[in-house]
């Protein structure tokens, strides 16, 4: 049962795409692009050492976007039969004729598409046997269960492997294809307080394009256990203002909010608190933020974006100044700016803007040193809820973490909220940690914010 067995029939996607583009032209389309993707996934979940769930699948999908002058529509299907693709072409063309002209619509200029398609180290042909994958998940969970007597239960551990390829072609003659693979492990143990019996769950994970670079199951399991146990005995806080330190994961979340606000679609729609901020100061000098689509092995890396433009490194915030928005062709045209190669796209969808590897450049202060610099404050390790208003920047989310007293973590806290405004929060970044690690497309070191409102009892 190696995942090889599920390898999809060898279809020539390039021919398929070229054929569809010419059929769209026959139907009267002035421009078109085609995206084809296929892939296979294998996922193992174990719980309390026993296999809980095995999932195996392969999928494929083809999407067509057509333009009739300034009118455009998209459609997609998982059925690659001739009849289905005939219907796809005629349906898409009919849809396009039914919508309204949009002056900015269209493919990117033909001379802007990617000329080179560098190998960014996104694919690893390692194929794991079913038993091997079960064993990896088991080892992760076992490490968590063995780490501390207070780890009493588990929501399980999961090991996933997947691989796939993406092909994009357009009527200007662009044709690009790349393969990628992903290996990931996560462990979710539950800790119980011996005295009160109250439970806390936490989890930890690792994800990589290459199997060999993945953290060991043991280290992931131990970290998951450490995170669950340290939450036991959490208290509430009284309502107050205090400095707030965001750990790596939570800081990455804040950066994600910033990405959203700096993306072209939010801006031209009037739905971003960063409207009119280009070239202005957003944060103190110690803040520099990049979006780099070509980081070797990066989880957000790809040789070309969802429109076939080359990916690149964009300086979004340079020493505190907002130097670039993040754009695809359409949102760029709406704002009178050039695309930054951030078109992100599901098969059969119009492009939107998405991050490649979006990160805050690390500073020199170790995270422990940041905590030591706080006399009284909050260290946030979990945020829940959707209380972020992109239009105004108003921010209010449920939080859990630790109360800091005299530079030490004094006790865990929960059932509190932290609130402020994103503009003010970025302006109030006082320290950027040295601990940048990529565990996703958006990454940040630990950061300290001068002060926020904490609501509790």
């Amino acid at each position: 049962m190696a995942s090889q067995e599920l390898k999809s029939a060898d279809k020539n996607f390039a021919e398929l795409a070229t054929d569809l583009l010419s059929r769209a032209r026959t139907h009267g389309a002035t421009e078109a692009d085609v995206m084809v993707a296929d892939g296979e996934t294998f996922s193992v979940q174990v719980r309390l050492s026993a296999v809980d769930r095995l999932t195996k699948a392969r999928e494929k999908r083809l999407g067509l976007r057509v333009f009739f002058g300034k009118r455009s529509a998209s459609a997609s299907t998982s059925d690659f039969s001739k009849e289905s693709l005939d219907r796809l072409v005629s349906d898409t063309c009919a849809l396009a004729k039914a919508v309204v002209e949009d002056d900015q619509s269209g493919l990117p200029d033909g001379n802007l598409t990617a000329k080179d398609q560098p190998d960014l180290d996104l694919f690893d042909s390692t194929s794991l046997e079913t038993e091997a994958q079960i064993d990896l998940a088991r080892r992760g969970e076992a490490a968590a269960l063995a780490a501390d007597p207070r780890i009493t239960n588990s929501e399980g551990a999961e090991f996933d492997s997947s691989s796939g390829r993406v092909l994009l072609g357009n009527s200007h003659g662009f044709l690009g294809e790349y393969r990628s693979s992903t290996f990931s492990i996560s462990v979710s143990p539950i800790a119980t307080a011996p005295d009160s019996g109250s439970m806390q769950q936490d989890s930890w994970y690792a994800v990589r394009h290459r199997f060999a670079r993945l953290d060991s199951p043991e280290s992931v399991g131990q970290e998951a256990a450490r995170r669950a146990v340290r939450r036991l005995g959490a208290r509430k806080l009284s309502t107050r203002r205090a400095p707030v330190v965001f750990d790596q994961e939570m800081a990455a979340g804040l950066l994600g909010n910033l990405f959203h606000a700096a993306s072209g679609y939010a801006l031209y729609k009037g739905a971003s608190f960063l409207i009119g901020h280009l070239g202005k100061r957003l944060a103190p000098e110690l803040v520099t933020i990049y979006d780099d689509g070509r980081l070797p092995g990066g989880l957000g890396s790809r040789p070309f974006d969802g429109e076939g433009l080359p990916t690149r490194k964009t300086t979004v915030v340079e020493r505190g100044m907002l130097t670039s928005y993040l754009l695809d062709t359409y949102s760029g045209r709406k704002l009178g700016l050039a695309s930054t190669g951030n078109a992100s796209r599901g098969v059969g969808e119009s492009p939107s803007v998405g991050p490649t590897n979006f990160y805050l450049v690390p500073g020199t202060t170790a995270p422990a040193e940041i905590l030591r610099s706080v006399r009284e404050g909050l260290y946030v390790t979990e945020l829940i809820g959707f209380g972020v208003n992109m239009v105004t920047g108003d921010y209010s989310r449920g939080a859990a973490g630790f109360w800091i007293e005299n530079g030490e973590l004094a006790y865990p806290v929960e059932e509190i909220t932290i609130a402020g405004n994103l503009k003010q929060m970025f302006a109030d970044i006082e320290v950027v940690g040295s601990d940048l690690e990529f565990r996703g497309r958006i990454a940040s070191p630990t950061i300290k914010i001068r002060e926020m409102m904490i609501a509790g009892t």
Partner: protein
Amino acid sequence: MSTQETAELAQFGLGELEIRQALGRVKVRDVDYADLYFESRVSESVSMEEGIVKRATKSVSQGVGVRATAGEKTGFAYSDELTRKDLEIAADTARYIANSPQGAGTLPVTHRQRPNRDLYPAETSVADIATHERVDLLNLIDAEARRYDPRIKNVMASFNTEYKIVVVATSEGLLVGDVQPLSRLQVTCIAEEHGNRQIGTFGGGGRVGFAFYSERDRYRHYAREAARQAILNLSAVDAPAGIMTVVLAGGWPGILLHEAIGHGLEADFNRRKTSAFSNRIGTRVASELCTIVDDGTLPFRRGSLNMDDEGTPTGRAVLIERGILRGYITDRLNAKLLGIPLTGNGRRESFQSVVLPRMTNTFMLAGESDPQDIIRSVKRGLYAVSFGGGQVDITNGKFVFSASEAYLIEDGAITKPVKGATLIGNGPEILTRVSMVGHDLKLDEGIGTCGKEGQSVPVGVGLPTIRVDEITVGGTKS
């Protein structure tokens, strides 16, 4: 044969024999149960912004999910090809978990019991609406929202439809199908005044036809409500921070029940004893005034289903009765392992996802208080009318949800609108503080989507006006 199911199977180019063979292959000696879930889905979307309908998309997908369970173990595979060979590969993957040799026989289909009701008759929900009609509707919405107030600077609206045909075949001999339409109309307005920019959102939908949106002037109502909320927020003041008495309006604020109670009562978490509600059946988790149900049988509702995704007819499960926890919501696997009743809550996002116990329409039954009296009873507090989204930590019970329209209550009267505040609390405690329940039960407009383990499914919520004596409000103002 001329049964409805055979007609639905034909949609997938399959006959009953192939189903029986595939089930025979997967339902081997050590497999307790196996099923096949065939799904065909056509989704269409048109969207408008800046006064023009710019985008139209259509997506077609079909496939099969094959599942086998053995004890607590589940083997699952899916494929978007429906050839016999693909079914066999999927069946072999699914039965791997049972460590049994390949099965050779066929399994009989013994009953094809259709749910004896039709909550969303297909003839009233034709997916095949001409695109220009959808375009016209969005244009009317744009005009209506802009007419509401000149400070409305942008209107974004989208209309999404989905038409799903499913067939479930099980190793216990069941073969049933359902046709499940779903649509949603969503309006977002941006208002601007002196550089102050605010957003308002409103929408509705259900398992309804296109005519639903014109009946009772619904689309105008959606447009005006989105505009009203955006304009209102222009004058909103900072939300307070700290513990307050909160009055929740009827309808969508029922998301409180979904987050604080509903997820914690899903049987999978309770079988694994990882929920804050584990082992609490029969104990008090809410005040006497609270009776909460999950009901998948309400006609045309977004969260409703004739049958769940395992072919079990949906029903009405009483979760909390006069404050006492009565039961969990279940799918087949968890009901069997826990030895508790099957409630028809086994749901999946698509053929690509596994079945999980999920909510349908979750709401609190009406009480006896007059909603006006409830507001008048509060000296200083918050009146929350509409919410964005919510989230819960199942294990420690902590939940949050964020208000998108809320007001201060001062001396029993609603006064100033406040900016989005997050409410946070503890699931097993929060409803013990409900001191008044209104007689005005209202269900939401039909926009809810619930996420769990990465799977999204449509759900509904409902609530009468209620008074909660203490909730932590996460504002910015001390």
